[in-house]
């Protein structure tokens, strides 16, 4: 799952996968602005077939928190 998340981020924001860590956040990535964030959310929802609430969208501001949230949502489905 981590690999897929990193791939999406890398593709969307144009940064190499090996530069992405759990702590990576909008401040660290030039293209991860508010617009980029919305596109990231949409891409993640498609990839993992999950749905974030509006509040979650505004709170998922680090790669680590994204991983945790997707993990929780995917497990809930199972």
């Amino acid at each position: 799952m981590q690999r897929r998340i990193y791939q999406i981020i890398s593709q969307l924001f144009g940064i190499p996968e090996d530069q992405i860590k759990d702590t990576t956040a909008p401040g660290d990535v030039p293209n991860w602005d508010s617009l980029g964030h919305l596109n990231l959310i949409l891409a993640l929802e498609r990839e993992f077939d999950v749905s974030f609430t509006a509040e979650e969208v505004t709170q998922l501001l680090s790669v680590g928190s994204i991983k945790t949230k997707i993990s929780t949502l995917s497990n809930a489905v199972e």
Partner: protein
Amino acid sequence: MSIRFDEIFSQLEPSPGSYLNASKKISSENVEGLRNLNLAVLSSFTAEIISPYLHVECARRGIHLERYFGPYNQFEQLVFSQTSALYGEPRDVVLLMFSIEDFSYSFLNSFSDAENELDLMKVRITGIIEGLRRFSDAYILVANFPEPFFRPDISSQHGALLQRANVVISDLCKRELGVYLFDLSRLVSEVGSNRWYDRRLHYIARVPFGFEGQLAISKRIARYIRALFFPPSKCLIVDLDNTLWGGVLGEDGLSQIQLGDAHPGNVYKEFQRYLLFLQKRGILLAIASRNNEEDVLEAFIHHPEMILKWENFAAKKISWQDKTSSIRSISAELGIGLDSLVFFDDSALERAWVEKEIPEVKVIQVPRDAVHFVDAIENSEAFDQIISSPEDANRVSMYQQSGAREALRLNAISVDKFLEELEILLEIGLLDSMTIQRVAQLIAKTNQFNLTTRRHSIVTLQRMVEEGAHVLWARVSDTFGDNGLVGVAIVTSEKLQHWRIDTFLLSCRVLGRKIEKAFLAVLQEYLAQNGASYLIGEYIPSSKNSQVVTFYPDSGFDPIEDSPGQWIINLERKRTPKPDFIRIGKNPCSVGSTK
């Protein structure tokens, strides 16, 4: 179009990632062979999110589109000022989009005032269009209002009011030169408002379309732009059997072909009506069919359900020769280039052959089910037409020559006049328990008009107040409604009557109206009354706040020697002038409401 482009488009999927990638690839390709066009989008909300989709969908249609998105909700500021960024490059098309809530906050609630609101709307949009026309020859597309995603009750009057607003817009477009309706309402209906909107985007960022809506609107805008700059195809060549009627004339006989008011004949009858409609619009019809000419002539003369007549067709190639030869001779006979022909044939084999032999001809992918025939032609975009006549095109150039624009320039409305008519009311208050949440939110989120971008948390804010800082908020309303709390200023006292502005910010919602000057002026008044003699302002650059780099010097502050980014004003000698057209309401200056 290059092979590379074909590859890019064939790999395209309906997802943000796929389009963003395609957009990057197109940018790095040689765009020769695409027509360069320039679009400016002025909207009451941030629309920039559609930029890559527009880029790709235009490239697909042979257009290399330069895109400019004006800062949102600054129509008049951009349009009335000849030096604004809007006019920085010559534009080919300007798209105006209004979200009803942003455009007129009170509109949907003002049943008693509906006439007045509609009039205001008409005046405002007319003003914007005329303003544009003074400095730009661009085509103007004006979007109408779609259904908002929430309507309080089923039979409410909102719907009727919205329809009337759309009639206002539609009438305006008919009246004005080179101004066309962008039927957004229809598009949202086509997609379905349940699929169009993503409520989260609306609440988080006031973006009035989810991804599906974003993609659909981009395709539609691209389609309009193409229709404005490329002529429609001139001639539609149709087959006969299983196209204009059900069945095969030569085998089933005249009385057995399906054409009439009952199913399945009604599908073909309807299709004939559609072709007649195209013909009336000026598109030539032609037949390329393998049949006996006498049988066909008899069918047209004697079948009682024929909508189309023999005379409706500008050319008829009814013989046993192959379709490519027929198409070539239609082209020669009518004097129409092959690339202006559209071929509609239900046989996949025939279509494949024509595609291979005469690639210039546009071949419609005819669906198996005749109920979709009309859609297939519509979706091909081949006959899209916005400029309805050569007369219309002539009028535009005559208008340019006659100096009508000069007349408009003389009656010019300026940005200042517009700002005056807004009747802006500014209220200022001190932080309290009711306002602290909103203030903290503004501090956390405001990026552009933010002098120092200090992200004080709520806890820090409280501590600062306890330690003697003053936190002021600004609230703005105008003729269109209440903007709410939109500005924050935090000042701390230093030594001896020197105060420092720790934070000064304004929501981008209210930029372009000189509100920041009024806020600063009142702040200075307040501090002076509290014993301040000097006020220090700081500018800390960030990646987003470059627009405020000269804010303090522009407001009358002087630089502090050896301290770049620090400015000072002597309140006893000088003040930032307050713009006349802004009224000050409730504020903490002890002299009461100032004028």
